[in-house]
């Protein structure tokens, strides 16, 4: 593995050289002073800086294990600051506006926030050599790339609480199954107030693309089962311990690790579902700019994406990485069809208007579910 990595690094270095020759902007590393191997020069400069600070809102354990891969490779320790996305964005903006240079890499699930940072001039232009292996529609070329895998909303069930027949029904149409009266008192739902993505999930069913199939009536039928209303982290706990048998609106990235540990849960991606990718970028005021560039080069490598995939259990985003996850061989698991996932809710005016403080969507949801959040 290590040898493989070295070869890969060399290949990467060559690619970087080639790319550097082709582009005039600040892209992959060049070294005017010595003219020698730019990758080696970058590594040396990064090592001289001594450390790297990573701001992100993904799962903290995953981020730590992933960045540890970078530390193992180059001996540069990474400090991870993990906060919920909205707080992270606020904090980062505050720091940047105040001239506090803390973060080197900024990573966030919410793309609107990332766009805001680019517009504000907080993000530096940089194109990693292998940036082409990442989906262009989830990137802003030269600024940010979806280096961490995507995550998607699911409907999940506890296999020790439902029969094989139930599972077949849930797999066929999970939202309809959640409305089955046999699950009365044993359904859990996440509330749309907990994140914009969950709001979009319910919106998709009730007023968006899925309204023809489901509409508000389908949600009313789920509500008739008197569901337990909890936010993601608590809801997944309730499902695992069997308090609820079926749960609507849990992110798959929360579930993969439970499945890997043998917890009795399985899940299915409803149609339409919503999802997103984390965007990763270098901060303009990065106190360790070379370490940041080296990190972007490392993070776009095949090995780094394999490592992230192995840690999180999520589907690899790098087109050169094969999806060889154990879960792919499970009968119950079907990966989400990214062509059909609703990513664009962040730009959907009707949704944004309905779900903001003045809109009526949240009020309507509260009315249907008898929730007073």
């Amino acid at each position: 593995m290590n040898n493989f990595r070295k070869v890969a690094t060399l290949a990467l270095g060559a690619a970087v050289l080639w790319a550097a020759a082709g582009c005039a902007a600040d892209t992959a590393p060049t070294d005017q002073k010595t003219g020698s191997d730019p990758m080696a020069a970058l590594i040396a400069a990064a090592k001289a800086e001594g450390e790297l600070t990573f701001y992100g809102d993904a799962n903290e354990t995953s981020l730590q294990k992933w960045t540890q891969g970078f530390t193992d490779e180059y001996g540069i320790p990474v400090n991870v600051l993990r906060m919920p996305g909205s707080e992270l964005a606020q904090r980062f903006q505050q720091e940047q506006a105040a001239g506090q240079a803390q973060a080197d890499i900024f990573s966030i699930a919410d793309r609107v926030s990332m766009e805001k940072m680019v517009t504000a001039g907080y993000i530096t232009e940089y194109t990693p050599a292998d940036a082409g292996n990442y989906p262009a529609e989830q990137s802003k070329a030269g600024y940010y790339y979806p280096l961490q895998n995507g995550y998607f909303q699911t409907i999940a069930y506890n296999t020790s609480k439902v029969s094989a027949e139930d599972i077949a029904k849930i797999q066929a149409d999970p939202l309809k199954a959640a409305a089955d009266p046999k699950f009365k008192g044993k359904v859990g739902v996440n509330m749309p107030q907990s994140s914009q993505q969950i709001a979009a999930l319910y919106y998709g069913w009730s007023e968006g693309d899925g309204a023809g199939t489901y509409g508000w009536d389908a949600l009313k039928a789920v509500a008739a089962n008197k569901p337990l209303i909890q936010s993601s982290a608590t809801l997944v706990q309730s499902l695992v311990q069997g308090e609820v048998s079926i749960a609507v609106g849990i992110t798959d990235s929360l579930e993969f690790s439970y499945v890997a540990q043998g917890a009795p849960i399985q899940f299915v991606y409803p149609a339409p579902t919503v999802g997103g990718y984390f965007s990763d970028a270098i901060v303009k005021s990065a106190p360790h700019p070379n370490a940041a560039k080296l990190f972007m080069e490392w993070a776009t490598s095949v090995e780094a994406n394999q490592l992230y995939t192995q840690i999180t259990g999520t589907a690899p985003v790098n087109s050169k990485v094969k999806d060889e996850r154990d879960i792919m061989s499970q009968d119950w698991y079907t990966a989400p069809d990214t062509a059909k996932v609703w990513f664009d809710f962040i730009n959907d005016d009707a949704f944004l208007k309905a779900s903001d403080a003045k809109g009526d969507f949240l009020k309507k949801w509260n009315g249907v579910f008898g929730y007073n959040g």
Partner: protein
Amino acid sequence: MTLLDRPGVAPGEPGGSATEIVALPPGGARRTRLRAPSALAIVILLLLLGLVAGPVLMVFVGAVQSEAPGLPNNHFSWDAVFRVYFSGDFYGSLLGTLGMAIATAALSVVFGGIAAWFLTRVAVPLRRLWEFGLILPLFLSPFVGALAWLLLAAPNSGIINVNLRWMLGLDDDTVLVNIMTLPGVVFVMLLFYVPYAYLFISSALRNMDPSLEEASSMNGRGTFATAMRVTLPMMRPAIVASFFFVAVLATGVFVIPAVLGLNTSFSPLAVEVYRAMTVFPSNPPTAAALGTLLFWFTLVGVYLYRRSVRNANRYVTLSARATRPRAVALPVGRWVAAAFFAVYALLAAVLPYLTLILMSLTPFAITDLRNIKLSLSGITQVWTRPDVATAFGNTLVLGIVVPTVVVLIGLGVAYVVVRERGRLGALIDYLGTFPIAVPGIVFATGVLWLYVRTPVYATVFVVTIALIGAYMPHGARFASAGLIQIDRSLEEAARMNGASKLRMLFTVTFPLLRPSLLSAWTLLFVFATREVNEAVILSGPKSRPLSVLAWNYVEQGSLQQAAVVGLFLTVVMAVGILFARVVLRAKLDSSNL
């Protein structure tokens, strides 16, 4: 809640003991006694302005902005204030929050007061153990405590329900206990608030002049009549104080109903504040404006409290430490009480901690004890984290510096308020109480706005400053309770013999107060070690304490690791308390508070 409270003060005739009679007609006397503020008062005022008024002011500034202060596109705007105060969107939330806070406080005072009476007046067997069991929930963050109860007593899958079903051969749908109901939520909330009421009331009961109760008893009144007609009126200041203290703290609670899935008819203001900060798109001005809304209500609370105490103390006897109150003879009752306390300790301390240990040893929650698989993987995962040592170090810094500074400044605040009084004293009293009026998340944001342009930003120093400000009310309250018990003439003697005020404080006041201050230190050590809300907002990647690691684990759904860190924190607290007890001879109980 504020510092003019006099636990252990008896209204009525002095009864011939060595006491000082202070005739204090409300307001009037104080106004005539205007004098130049002392140097100590000015120093304390400056400290409070920096630690408390600065961040609180930033919150007010933040409420009238279009975005968070300091951002480039930000401008002055009344939008957030208008929405919070006048749009009507938050009125239901406000009323519900106030109702919940008042109900929680009332119940806490009733139960805490009854517990305090039994533990101070009746020779309940093993009473030290019960007292410890009563305050043990304070060692857990309410979030972790609520999660433990969810695992224990959820209706379908709780440990108690699942296992009693197979043990007793009951139907699968039998629900024996259900924590996810209104009484269940109230019960868990009380576990975390009764200890405050208990600590305040029992310290007053212990330090009360016993001669009045004895007189009542000699005149033929029974135990109950004496308790109701003599003890209870005498406890009024302590009861009012703990009522307001708990009520204000309870306005900030939201995790317990949220975790237990209770769908109340309103969403607590603290939840609205949290959402305004965390749910995209975040809106810091709204959060700040909500913070100011709660602030006014607390201000009214402080004012009412000061009034009520002033009237209660029209004729006050300030006696030096009296003899111990005699024990009430309840030959059967004391065993019944012991049984009640044992059940309470089981529910409040033993079961949640056992659950936490179980959580830390199982990779995911299995509630059927027959199927449990234990593993140490959670412990190794936490242990091998690269930043666990740094986090431990940060927790130690917070755990040592915060209580020490808070106790010292708290002593200064109490001295100015209790001994020097005057207008400046009143101002300092209000300032020292403000931080509990502002939700932690908002207060911390104020600190962030204040310090983001300074070099100390993102260091553990900023977290320390925020926590010192946040716990100032606790420190001042504990110090003043102790100070009131000390006969003023001892201090005056030192001054007459030519000692400076500082020297008097260090040679007379401080040594006499030592037991109270050490008890306060120990309790504040526990709070500073456990605190999450503010540390989450303020710490950088290298300045996070253990409590923040636990919180992040909870947020990502890794409860096993969260339980491991939670237990580790409890061990840190236990070691700290043991250290305080053995080396400093400080007891974590109410006798010195």
